[in-house]
């Protein structure tokens, strides 16, 4: 069984490798992060029953946010040792290529 910090790191890598995720976000008022002896992982909160992922989504004209979050949940869920996965979209980043 991995500890919370290790689990947060694994989840963080998986999230950042997902297309459509611009970055992880630590939130606005209360920092969304996992703390441990070896450091801090911002944007991933590991709780006993749930893993909460805070992201900045990249705007993709052909892909709505729920599709992105579904993909994220599918990718992350097998690595969370049975915990539920919740995704919080903190912001939407519109890149230059979006032409808006």
């Amino acid at each position, binding site marked *: 069984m991995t500890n919370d910090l290790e689990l947060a790191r694994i989840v963080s890598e998986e999230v950042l490798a997902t297309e459509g995720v611009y970055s992880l976000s630590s939130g*606005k008022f209360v920092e969304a992060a996992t703390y441990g002896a070896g450091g801090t992982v911002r944007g991933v909160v590991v709780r006993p029953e749930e893993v909460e992922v805070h992201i900045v989504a990249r*705007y993709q*004209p052909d892909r*709505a*946010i*729920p*599709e992105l*979050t*579904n993909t994220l*949940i599918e990718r992350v869920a097998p690595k969370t040792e049975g915990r*539920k*996965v*919740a*995704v*919080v*979209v*903190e*912001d*939407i980043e519109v890149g230059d290529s979006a032409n808006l």
Partner: protein
Amino acid sequence: MRIFNRIVMAIIFLALLALGVFMVLYSFNLFGFKLSNLLNNNVLGLQTIQNGLKNFVNNVQNANLMPLAIAIMVAVAVVGLILLILEFKPPRPKKVRMQQGTYITRDAVEDEVLSATNETPHILDSSARVKARRSPGASVNLQANVRRGEDVGAVRSDLRERIQQRLSQRGVPVSKLKVKLHETDPRQTQSRVR
């Protein structure tokens, strides 16, 4: 209710602090405050309070209350009931629920709404307020200014359409969209020309 509770608790603790300070002063006979003076000189007015309470209870027993007293008692009961209901009501969520396990912050929705508004012709400036609901979807309250003499109905419908289109492209559900347009002098708005 959380803010209300905090304010009430802050007031109670301040009152307790003040009482504690006076208790120390009276207990140690500091600065001329003596505990024995409190009862001897009726400083606290305990006798008056006791008499007032006695009269009130007697009046209640004899069904001889003044209309004002009845009104105050009813008001206190109603306020108490409202506070009780509010206390039991679950707090409003802070994030907008999109679907099971997926949320978006109110700020992100607000940014999208304002971006859509700024792209709408004839809108001089705008402000939006987004609330999360317990059910999926955001409640959006938008206020925008247009130049006097504009076709407000047409601008409103264009604006609603653009906001709904933009949010649906992003996949953000909107359960309530309220658009209020004000006709105003462009010299009083952020941008004068569109």
